[in-house]
């Protein structure tokens, strides 16, 4: 396990065989992943009985250790791990009573809603949250209530469910404690590093990929990012990374009008590969809308999407040849347009 990294790229790690070791790295790839948001971050009133698990903990218990966390289950949050655990627990003989999601839309992939909830008749209650947990030694039940547009529970909408288990699937937090130690610039939206087209952070030779960079829904994209970060770190070590001479031609990506962020945040046109994938998430559910890309004030892409949702990562592709035709370009804007 890596305990520490320094700005001069000394990595300190520890394991059973070698004890504590310092190594001087030429390049570092940040790939620490993310952790689950715990109950303590949620402000749910009630006691602290046994039977409250994060969805990932339950997943580990069932799939790897072979234990069932409980029989009568209520799930808070509709993240993908929670949805998958709804199906998993059902197939293992548990009764999943309800999934309560505080937002008016699900945080998970559509196909998981279909195959993990709809297939088994598990209700998904949007704009609902847990307002009370009953039980002292063990969970005995929960009260869920509808929330208003300010996410405040609406009095009179409370419903009680008897259950012995609560699973929390309420978001993932990138593990950037080490990144902060070396003053990697962070993006407040993703809680991950700000990176350029090569997935390099503001600290030269330090790259980032996967869920530490921004939380993904599909592992395929994580693999693609990992390959790109690895390739660029290798180039950096071999002194073939370059691009400094072309740094004048660096374009900034701006996310506005429904687009919450973009990864990467800057593109060095001199250094980029033939194409660069720009991934982003939208901040709401958009139906029959367009993903638009502007090179300064000129609209260069206007792609219709039947539906876009916060739970599904979107992407656009930047083409090097095309960008070379805009030598004075300063800013690429990605936005959602109604028409």
């Amino acid at each position: 396990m890596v305990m520490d990294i320094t700005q001069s790229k000394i990595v300190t790690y520890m394991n059973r065989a070698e004890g504590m070791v310092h190594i001087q790295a030429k390049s570092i790839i940040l790939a620490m992943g993310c952790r689950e948001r715990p109950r303590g971050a949620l402000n749910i009133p009630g006691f602290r009985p046994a039977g409250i698990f994060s969805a990932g903990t339950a997943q580990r218990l069932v799939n790897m250790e072979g234990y069932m966390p409980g029989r009568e289950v209520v799930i808070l949050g509709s993240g993908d791990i929670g949805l998958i655990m709804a199906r998993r627990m059902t197939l293992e003989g548990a009764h999943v009573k309800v999934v309560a999601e505080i937002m008016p839309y699900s945080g998970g992939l559509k196909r998981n809603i279909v195959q993990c909830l709809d297939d088994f008749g598990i209700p998904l209650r949007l704009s609902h949250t847990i307002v009370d947990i009953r039980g002292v030694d063990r969970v005995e039940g929960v009260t869920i209530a509808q929330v208003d547009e300010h996410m405040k529970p609406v009095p009179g909408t409370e419903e009680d469910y008897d259950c012995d288990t609560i699973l929390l699937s309420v978001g993932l937090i990138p593990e950037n404690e080490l990144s902060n130690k070396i003053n990697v610039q962070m993006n407040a939206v993703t809680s991950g590093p700000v990176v350029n087209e090569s997935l390099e952070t503001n600290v030269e030779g330090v790259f980032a990929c996967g869920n530490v960079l921004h939380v993904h829904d599909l592992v395929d994209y994580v693999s693609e990012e990992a390959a790109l970060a690895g390739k660029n770190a290798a180039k950096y070590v071999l002194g073939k990374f370059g691009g400094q001479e072309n740094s004048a031609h660096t374009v900034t990506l701006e996310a506005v009008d429904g687009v919450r962020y973009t990864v990467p945040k800057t593109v060095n046109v001199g250094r980029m590969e033939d194409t660069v994938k720009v991934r982003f998430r939208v901040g709401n559910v958009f139906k029959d809308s367009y993903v638009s890309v502007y090179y300064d004030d000129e609209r260069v892409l206007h792609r219709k999407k039947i539906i876009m949702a916060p739970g599904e990562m979107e992407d656009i592709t930047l083409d090097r040849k095309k960008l070379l035709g805009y030598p004075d370009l300063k800013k690429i804007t990605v936005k959602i347009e109604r028409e």
Partner: protein
Amino acid sequence: MEKRELICIGCPLGCMITVDMQDGKVVKVTGNTCTRGEKYAVKEVTCPTRIVTSSVRVSGGDIRVLSVKTREAVPKEKIFDCANALKTVKVAAPVRIGDIILKDAAGTGIPFVATKNVKSPSTL
């Protein structure tokens, strides 16, 4: 005319598909963006299938639980029968990805296969 509303699960796009049906036959599929969507919709309203993923106990290995799946999709109404058929199955290490764990999952004719390698102490 009967209308069935579906969400396509062929890819992350999740298209909203409407299937018009008459006397149990598909008349028209709308809302899909690709041909996979149409195929999925027709299948989903005539004979829906799913790949079932689950786990079995494994003895004498470096891990205690082995992840498995049906090699091909099984009829949707057989999901529970397939999952329950694994309850009594015990396997011994070593196991390799693709090994058949249960020959015939609940009379579907489709086997459960391992999706993980398990080493036994002698091969560790």
